[in-house]
Structure formats: C-alpha cells, structure tokens
C-alpha cells in the first residue's frame, strides 16, 4: 500500500492534509492514516452501511457520512468540531433511549463500541426519555445468546452471515421505530439456524446482541478493550 502524498491525492481533515487512494471513502482514508472519526455501523471488512450517522462530517460545508462520501482531492472535511460532536452525542443518546442498554449488567461492557463511543463523546446521560421497548431475548441456541435489547441495527451480522459465512442467518424486519433484527428459521429462533460460534457473524456485533454463552466475565471488568484506552486511540483495530 503506498500512500501518495502529493497535493493531487490528498484532502484536508480538520485542517491537516490526509492522503487517500483512489476509490477510498473519507472514513477509510482517515482510518488508514490512524485518524479517528467516530463511527458505529462501519467495519473495514464490509461495505459501508451509512445507518448510524455517527460518522457525519462536513464536506466543503455540506453534511455527509464519512463512511459513504468518497475522498477527493482538495476536499475540506470537518469532523472534530464542537457542533458535529454535539450531533454525535445526540445520535448516541437516541440509540441508548431507543433500546434497553444497562451497561453495568451487560457482558459486553468494556468491549462495546456504543459504550466506548459514548464515553468518547462525553455522553453523561440519556437526555431523552427512555422508550423501554419490549424485546424478548432468544436463548434457544446452545452456544449463543441473542439479546435484541441492545441492537443498533448496524446490519453487520446480516452482512457477515450472508457474505462470509454463507448462512443468511439474519435479516431486518419491520419499519420505523419498530425496525428489528430477524432470525431466519421457520420458528424464528436461533437454535433452528445453522449459526455456529465459529461464524464470523458470531463475533462481529459492535454491541452486546450476539454473545457466546458460558463466557461471562472471563475477562474481568477493568481489563477489557476500552478499559485500557479510549476508542479514539484504538484505530489500529479497524485497520485491516
């Protein structure tokens, strides 16, 4: 990978020049260069989804999602500004109140991208009233627990199961605020799918929906990924 550094193939991110390769999005170029743009539904191994909007930036003054806007020479991209970070915090608060997120009792706490990004953006409370939706868990599978209460609809599991595992275990159903994750089986339960703990879909969830059973607190709180360093200092995890 060679990063051309001439003016032809660079754009400005928060006032600093950033080289890019043709075809890269702003988020891809930033990540490759070790620059942090907050994001949730984007993963370097999969096509951009653009649903969480946490990576929203200003490109030449116009709003856009860094995961979907292609880098181009001379673009002026603003990301780490008070205004955009305030928007990000509001988006995170929306995701928190929409589902049921009880971090202290969640096995994903400390490994959770939603929680880590909320800390990064200085979110101190939900701001809005909680919706407290009724979302039963699916504990039918012998090795995997599905806790839909935490789903942020990033669709990474849908893509991983379809494109990597070739199993099509997940899909999206409903609409509006009732949009939800579906499990593909006659019963609608995970036990009746071909899902296995070794699947890519089993470890792609950025939040705590898809969890391996009987592993609770194997890594103690305090020694987890985001306990050590904030998400903004762990870009290498996204560099494939």
């Amino acid at each position: 990978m060679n990063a051309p550094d001439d003016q032809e193939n660079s754009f400005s991110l928060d006032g600093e020049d950033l080289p890019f390769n043709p075809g890269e999005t702003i988020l891809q170029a930033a990540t490759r260069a070790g620059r942090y743009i907050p994001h949730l539904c984007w993963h370097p191994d999969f096509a951009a989804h653009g649903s969480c909007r946490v990576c929203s930036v200003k490109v030449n003054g116009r709003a856009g999602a860094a995961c979907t806007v292609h880098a181009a020479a001379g673009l002026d991209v603003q990301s780490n500004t008070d205004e955009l970070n305030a928007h990000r915090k509001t988006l995170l608060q929306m995701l928190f109140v929409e589902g049921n997120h009880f971090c202290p009792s969640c096995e994903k706490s400390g490994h959770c991208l939603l929680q880590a990004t909320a800390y990064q953006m200085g979110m101190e409370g939900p701001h809005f009233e909680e919706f407290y939706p009724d979302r039963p868990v699916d504990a039918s599978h012998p090795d995997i627990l599905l806790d839909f209460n935490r789903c942020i609809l990033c669709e990474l599991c849908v893509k991983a199961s379809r494109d990597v595992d070739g199993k099509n275990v997940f899909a999206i159903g409903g609409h509006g605020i009732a949009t939800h994750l579906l499990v593909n089986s006659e019963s609608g339960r995970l036990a009746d799918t071909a899902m296995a703990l070794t699947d890519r879909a089993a470890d792609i969830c950025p939040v705590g929906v898809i969890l391996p059973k009987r592993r609770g607190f194997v890594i103690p709180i305090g020694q987890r990924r985001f306990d050590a360093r904030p998400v903004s200092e762990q870009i290498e995890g996204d560099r494939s």
Partner: protein
Amino acid sequence: MTTPRGPHHSSATAADLSALLGRHGLDPHALVQILRDLQALHGWLPRDSLSQVAAALGLTLAHVEGVAGFYRFFHTRPVGAYRVLFSDSVTDRMLGSEALMADLCRRLGVAPGRLGEDGLVSVDRTSCTGLCDQGPALLINHHQVVTRLDATRVAQLAGLIRARVPVPQWPAEWFEVQDNIRRADVLLGEPAAPGAALAAALARGSEATLAEIKRSNLRGRGGAGFATGLKWELCRNAPGHEHVVVCNADEGEPGTFKDRVLLTRCADAVFEGMTVAAHIIGARRGLVYLRGEYRFLLEPLLAVLQRRRDTRLLGPAILGREGFDFDIAIHVGAGAYVCGEESSLIESLEGKRGTPRVRPPFPVERGYLGHPTIVNNVETFCAAARIALQGGDWWAGIGTPKSTGTKIHSVSGDCERPGLYEYPFGTRIGRILEDCGALDTQAVQVGGPSGVCLSAFEFGRRIAFEDVPTAGAFMVFDRSRDMFEVARGFAHFFAHESCGFCTPCRVGTALVVRRMDKLAAGHGSRHDIDVLFELDKLMHTATHCGLGATACNPLRDTIAKFRPAYEKHLKSLYFEPGFDLDAELSIARRMTGRDDAGAHLENQP
C-alpha cells in the same frame, strides 16, 4: 399462529400459489407484486405462505418476512375480511374524518386497529390517499376508494359490511373519483394526439430531442428540481448494456393528488414522455411505480398501454422504426411514503425493503438491477412529451428564467373550490388563494409536510424554484385552525412513514411525536420547544435521505411563525417532566388507602 377466521381467510391452495408465482415467472425481483397478489387471495400474509414463497423464489424466509413487514399495506397478522383504511391527511381530518371513523367503529363494534371477534372487519387510518379535494376518503381492501364520506355514507357502509355485501356491489357513485380541474394551462389543457410527440422526436433524432429538453430548462417536478435534460444525458452516456426508464407515480406527499389526475386524464402523455425518454437514453424497458393507494387506476392504465401497443406506440419497432423497441410495465406499491425517494423506489421495484441506497452511485449510473436508470415524476414526463412536440424554446418562454414552464398545484383545505390549478411558474401564492376561493387564510402549506408553511405576510411570494419551490401540494388553513395541531399531525405522519434505516429519522421522528403529544396533553414547557429545535437541527443535517431531512420542516416553520399556537399548550415556561407526578403516586395512595387532598400533588396549573 392465530386461526384465520371469516370467509376471505381460507388458505390459498398450493395450486393457487404456484399459479400466482408462475404469473410472475418465479422472479424474486417481483416479490412485492407477488406479496400483493398473495394478500389478495388470503386477505393477509400467513407465515407458512411466506415460507412457501421464499422456497419457490430461492429467497430466505427472513428476507421475505422483512419485505412483508416493511410495507404498511402488508399484514402479517389476520385482518378483517373487510379492511377499511381512513385517509389521515390533515385535510381529511378538517372534513371530519375522525368523527366518521369513530362512528363507523361504533356501528361495527370494533376498535381502530383491532380485529373484532368475528373477523369481519378491521378499521384503521392510513397516510393521505391523494383524494384531499373530495375527502374524507377511505380505502377498502387496498383496492377501491370511497370519496366524499358523510354520516349517511358511513351508516350505509356499516350496513353493507354487516350484510357481507361484496365491495364491487356497493353503490357505484361512492367510488366516483373526480378530476376537479379548476385551471388548465399547457399540461391540463387540450391533449396532444397520441404519438404526435413521439413522431416529432423520431423525426428530430434522439440527440436533437435531448438538446430540446435541455434548452427547455425543464426541472424535475417531484420536488428536488434536478435538471431533466442533464439527468437524461448522464444516463444516456452511462455505460451499460441496458438502460431503464422509471416513472415515479408514488405520489405520497400528503396533500398532493395531481399525478392521480394526470394518470386518469393524460396517461397517454405520461407514457409518451417515457417513450421519448427511452428514445433518448436508449432504453427498452420502462416501469411505472404506481402507489398502492392508486390501485384503482391500474386497469384503466393497462388498457391505455394495450391501446398504445396496438397502435405501435409501444412494443417492438415503435412507429415502424426498426430497433426502437420499448415497453412499459406497472408495479403497484404497498404503502410506503419513502418509496417516493428514487433509490428506495428502485429497491422496491427490485422486490426489496424500500430503504434509500447509499449514493453514489446514482441511479443514472447504477439503478434498477444495476442498469443506468432515470427516475422522473409523472408531471415531468408529461412536460417532456410537450417539449418534444413544441420545442424547448416554447417551454422556456413560459414561467421564469430559472423555473420554466407550468406547475400543477393540488389545492385542498379551507377553500371553496379545491382541485387542480395549473399556473406558469412565478405565480403569486395570493393569486392561487384568490382563484380557489380561500377566505380568511391563516397559512398555506406548500409542497406538503416536507415543504414550507407560509403565513399571511408571505402570500406575495411566488411559486418558483428560486422562491417557493413545490412538489405540488397546496393546503389552505383558515384562521379557525390550530397550526400546532396541523404540525402535530405531520409529525405523526413522518414517524409513521420513517423507513427505520438511519438513527436520526427513526428515533428522531419518534421523539418529535412524544414532544408534540406531551405539549398537546398540556404537559409541555419551553424546554420541550428547545428540544424540538435541537431535533430539527440534527435531522436536517444527519439523515440518510432527503425525506428524513425535511421531517421537521413543519415544526420549524410553525414554531417560528405561529408560536402562540405552541405557547398556549405550555404548562410552564421552564421544565415539565414527561410523566405525571400525581399519577406516579397512585400506587402509594392505594397501598396507604388514602385519597385525600394531602395525598395528591398539585397538578393543574
């Protein structure tokens, strides 16, 4: 699974299902059409039928379930043998739809949205059905429409349903849909002879016809106002072995009904415009995306298409020109406002959930099934046919330099003569109000809920892309109307129609509804208005598509221009919690057996 009840609920046989799938060539891209047909057999979509459809089409059950669950007109739970949906546009409400629905429910012994014990009937609301000039209106079994409802009609309707009289045997005048053309200009006036525009385009050649479209400065009539000639040129130049012409007849913006009339009166002009476009971009396939609410227009449209095939205006070798082969199919939607957005519309045409695509690539490069595709509004195609016939300079001579030609307005609400009004661009708002007989007007919502709300001091402004742009709705509110309630209705509309894809629209529209309902219940404070401003700002910049971005427009305008309408709902100027403090104490009162004044908190202002 709940046992199906009622005469319409016998399961479709395996033979029915395989015949239905066969009619669609077992094409997974026809999934939305297949589900529509399947629901016409069953009344609803039982899970075992979805499973059979999935197996036959090589799709997963979850995919099919996801598509069925996306569209508002698909039912994955049993519904009544009669499905009655009241149009819930603000203009229907102003004409008394809420009381009429309550009356019908009372007569039939059902609650809105709930299926009665006997499985006979379900009654509910649906987003604007595009009959605002002859409302209140309702939709029966996702097929027929009943217009001009009143207490008498509702009483008779309840009787017919109770007696299980099939809908086609109901009084014919109930289904009458009027055109109500009040002012015609070049589009709604004398129609051109079918084939005339096409003959002119063929004589001129595709390149020269494109030049005429560009010279006309025609801009898209769907709302965004993109230059039509440029769009067609981009598509024409996009590499691909097939190009596609799509007509967006998903007229979902509340208060808009001009495309319904164009498809009723000027279907030839619409199809002719599509065929001219096909000639220019080199397309063989055309698709009309007809909104599900306009299902009643399907048979007449199919008849026009057949007549055009019979007269060689469609099909192979159009007008005898070897190699110019083009035909048009009609896809019927299933209740989803977001499908008016062109990339969602294409997803829906492909048999998927209608969520907007990530762009680029734009449809002109990669659209329907990956082919370069143009998507244009019904009115745009009508205009293009006219331009092909009479030339770009002629069109550019009408209207203003930046907004050429005419625009058709769907006028509804508080006026004496609701209906269609076609004016050259540059027409004053006040002129339209005078012509439609609007008296004591407080506000006009131009372009529907996603458009702009104008108050009296702005009635001197003009309809034009450079002043007041519009997709065609023109809703009039007189001084008796509460503009807060109008905005609250729009907030509910956007929450109901959010596709659910992106965070700010999915959660934001739900939060707006909660705030507006809190204000309506008399529990609001200044803080809630501040939160509404904050949500508006976020949704304007952070949503995935333009529909989410405009979802707060009515709030922004009405708060700015009709602030007293909001403030009269405020309980305090500071903070009020979203819950009722006194109600929270009810358990404590029950436990202590007290209900005296000292056991209550001061609740009323």
